[in-house]
């Protein structure tokens, strides 16, 4: 049969068109996932290629490991605060972008800019912004009189040491991560808000609802499916992200003030050589995340009313 006639058959054409993406998923997602799972129940290290199944021992060891416990707590704080801030700020930005005003194109460009920059490069920029000696943030605060003088609101020291103090380091990491995630969340919410029929919002105005009542009784409930997707993306990106943490603090300040599960997995498996433990950390929360995804998607589907 000629190739041209073969391509006219729907199942053949469909298969061919899907082949590249399926190959990608199998090779770069499926295969590493299966390998991670196998490593996590084995004793494999970089130095010792012997592969022996040890059951759940790696996971049990992790639960007793203080570093893992600290990383777990940090990951939850990092994720919950980041996602919370992203949702609130994205809602504000989306509301702003719904309105017409002069210079809207510039505001839109500035909002989208973080998403266009490679994450590592953008984070390196923040490394300089938060430098312990030459931070422009600190310079600004000193110029405003909030830092560097006796009795100043933020202390007499000339620098805040953004990445050197445990609480402030976590806040810095969260700040950079929120900066990075905001454009995506804003665009998703903006698309959702544009899909709310204008007449429904006007009907609420005519019915007497003010801004906040319209927001909580009309806009947010109708945005629930879109918000659920935003939360899902944000949680997954945050939970599995190591770039911001690794570039800014490498999990410090010591002992593990900003260590998260993703960076701990890298530390243990690639830097420490313990592939099995690293894999166990990496996939520890897979069942939980899969459960969260299923729940959120079900909630999103149920809340679609139009």
């Amino acid at each position: 049969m000629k190739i041209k006639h073969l391509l006219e058959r729907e199942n053949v054409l469909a298969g061919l068109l899907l082949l590249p993406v399926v190959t990608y998923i199998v090779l770069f997602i499926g295969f590493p996932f299966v390998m991670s799972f196998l490593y996590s129940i084995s004793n494999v290290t970089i130095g010792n290629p012997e592969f022996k199944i040890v059951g759940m021992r790696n996971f049990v060891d992790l639960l007793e490991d203080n570093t893992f416990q600290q990383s777990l707590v940090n990951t939850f704080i990092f994720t919950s605060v980041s996602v919370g801030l992203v949702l609130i700020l994205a809602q504000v930005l989306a509301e702003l972008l719904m309105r017409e005003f002069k210079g809207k194109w510039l505001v839109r460009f500035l909002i989208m800019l973080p998403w266009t920059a490679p994450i590592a490069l953008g984070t390196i920029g923040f490394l300089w912004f938060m430098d312990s000696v030459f931070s422009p943030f600190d310079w600004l605060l000193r110029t405003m009189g909030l830092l560097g003088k006796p009795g100043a609101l933020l202390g007499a020291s000339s620098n805040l040491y953004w990445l050197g103090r445990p609480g402030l380091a976590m806040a810095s990491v969260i700040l950079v991560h929120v900066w990075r995630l905001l454009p995506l969340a804003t665009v998703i919410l903006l698309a959702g808000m544009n899909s709310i029929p204008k007449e429904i919002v006007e009907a609420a105005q005519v019915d007497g609802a003010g801004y906040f009542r319209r927001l909580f009784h009309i806009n947010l409930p109708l945005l629930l499916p879109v918000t659920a997707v935003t939360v899902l993306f944000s949680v997954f990106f945050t939970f599995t992200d190591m770039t911001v943490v690794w570039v800014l603090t490498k999990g410090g300040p010591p002992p593990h003030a900003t260590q998260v599960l993703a960076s701990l997995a890298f530390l243990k498996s690639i830097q420490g050589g313990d592939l099995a433990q690293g894999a166990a950390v990496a996939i520890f929360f897979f069942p939980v995340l899969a459960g969260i995804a299923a729940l959120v998607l079900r909630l999103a589907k149920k809340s679609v009313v139009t």
Partner: protein
Amino acid sequence: MASVEFKGLKKYFQDVHAVDGVDIEIKDGEFLVLLGPSGSGKTTLMRLCAGLEKPTEGEIIIDNNVVNDLPPRERGIAMVFQSYALYPHKTVFKNIAFPLIVERLDKREIRKKVEWASGLLGIGHLLDRLPSQISGGEKQRVAIARALVRKPKVLLMDEPLSNLDAKVRNSARVELKKFQKEIGVTTCYVTHDQAEAMGLGDRIAVMHEGRVRQIGIPEEIYHEPADMFVAGFVGVPPMNFIDHDGVVMGFRPEAFLPAELMNDEELMKFRITVERAENLGSYKLVYGAIGEARVIANLSPRYLIRDGEDYDFAVRARDVRYFDKKSGKRIKK
């Protein structure tokens, strides 16, 4: 209930003069219809009244108060949108109750009023349903119930029947008129459907290009149009126009009959070449030409007319209207 007045009202969207100097008074309890084609400014005028648009110039007066700077909720108005704009995530009960929840009434009071409004519209059995679970006609009733539940001073309706199928629309129109008379609320109703306007309005304001061309009772609008636009827009089929002695002569299709059917009143006779006759069941439309002018006659279906033949038709002199050829305005002759 309250009166509504628009004084010198204008609304410009940059170069577009959506409303271009409108002066209308709607009396207390009156049902006024704003009739016009798309883009005539009738919906913009209604939105100005509702407070959803700010006027460029002029005043909006509701119940003797200038409301230009008041938000919608402080004007005492309620509105039924063309798409009904029901809240899709709320039940019918909560849709109707929403304006009362905003007013912070207690739950018992809210229930009482919702039951009153839903009873009035015959939708008491639908209160637990979502909008996606009810029909178009039921949605329309829910929208009206939501508008009436807080007893507004003025009810605004933006083509609420346009999304209904033709059969339901006719019965809905009758019910709406009856209902408005019972409640007695001052109503401003927007439509492009002239049959709807004629059937519903106590008075009709015909709008075109942002201005009111004529305002009057339906009979006046139909039989005594102020200009060629009103004459041509109101009436299906529209009025016939023929150039005659430097003016434009207009007469309704139902007044244009075969000469042999007219008695010896003062008649104007024409020789018409019939192009096509359409038998529409209860009436017949005859399309023809008088010289270069195209005309339509509306006859009984029993009268036999053959395509391509010439016939003598006539119209009573008292049924003829004259219009200025340049301005289109009606002239008394």
